[in-house]
């Protein structure tokens, strides 16, 4: 990022884009696994055992964080485009940091087993 791009709103755009792309890559696998569950319970069980491996768990954690981030940053864009701007500089830049913190908190909850 060069000079003029050091701006939280630009960072938000990049995070939103990249998390969106990562989710697009992940979703087909997600549906594949769900489909397996419908067709063949044993295959699903095997898959669920596979997901207990540490590396896979870590991957899931990344997904939870990315998904939360994508959702929150998308909400920010919706608010920016629909709600009135309080003043000229109403980019809601602080929300970008807040979104990052909430996403990490949700990731922590996931690791803690609350929503695993």
């Amino acid at each position, binding site marked *: 990022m060069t000079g003029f*791009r050091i701006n*939280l*709103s*630009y960072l938000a755009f990049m995070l939103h884009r990249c998390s969106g792309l990562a989710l697009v890559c992940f979703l087909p696998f997600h549906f594949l696994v769900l489909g397996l569950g419908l067709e063949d319970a044993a295959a699903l069980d095997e898959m669920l055992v596979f997901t207990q491996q540490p590396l896979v768990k870590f991957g899931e954690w990344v997904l939870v964080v990315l998904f939360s981030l994508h959702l929150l940053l998308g909400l920010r864009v919706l608010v920016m485009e*629909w709600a009135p*701007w309080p003043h000229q500089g109403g*980019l809601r830049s602080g929300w970008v940091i807040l979104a990052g913190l909430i996403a990490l908190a949700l990731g922590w909850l996931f690791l803690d087993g609350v929503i695993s």
Partner: protein
Amino acid sequence: MPHLTVRIWRGADEGEYQSFSVPMRENQTVLDVVSEVQRSQDQSLSYRFACRVGVCGSCAMMVNGKPRWTCRTHIRSLKSGVVTIAPLRNMPRIKDLVTDMSGFIDKWGKAGNVFESERDRRDAPVAVDPSSPRRKAADAAIECINCGVCHAACDVVSWNDSYLGPAALNRAWSLVNDERHSRKKETMAAAMGDGGCGNCHSQGNCMAACPIGLSPTRSIAGLKKMSLMSLLGGSDV
């Protein structure tokens, strides 16, 4: 006297940086440095300026990677012993620091930015209430002097040739909110059509760079909302 190293772009789209050494002074803008190089070291250096006081907007260049008005940028504020000066981004280069701004200006037209009134000089002027929300929206966008700094700061402009860009759309926003403008529907259609407001990703680079603190991002957000409302049939454009 201490000296400052300035790297200045020479050539057109093909070219290279040339280094100059310029005496450092107590009070010195980037434009002063470019003028000093042109007057005392290389008279063939081409650049644009007019007012020297932040009124005309013609002196915009990339300074250390940022688009800025060079007449309003003090060397001191850059806090750097080496200053790199290049022509504005997202525009074809003609020579040295001079860009071809015709594409940028054409986009103003393509965004429907031609004011038209149904009245003539025999009619009474329209009474405009300065406190109405419409007028306030137009006022917030109206001070643009067409310098091209925001256009140079926008990545979507560099990714998508047909994107009209922050300046043109900001102007369209002030027109669709102007009670005296009689072709609001046409302006709106141009601003929400191909290359229009829907392309903006709300990156906010334009508003971070605008030297007078305008917010094209806000204007474009307004256009997006208005275009959706007009699709849903709820807009009074």
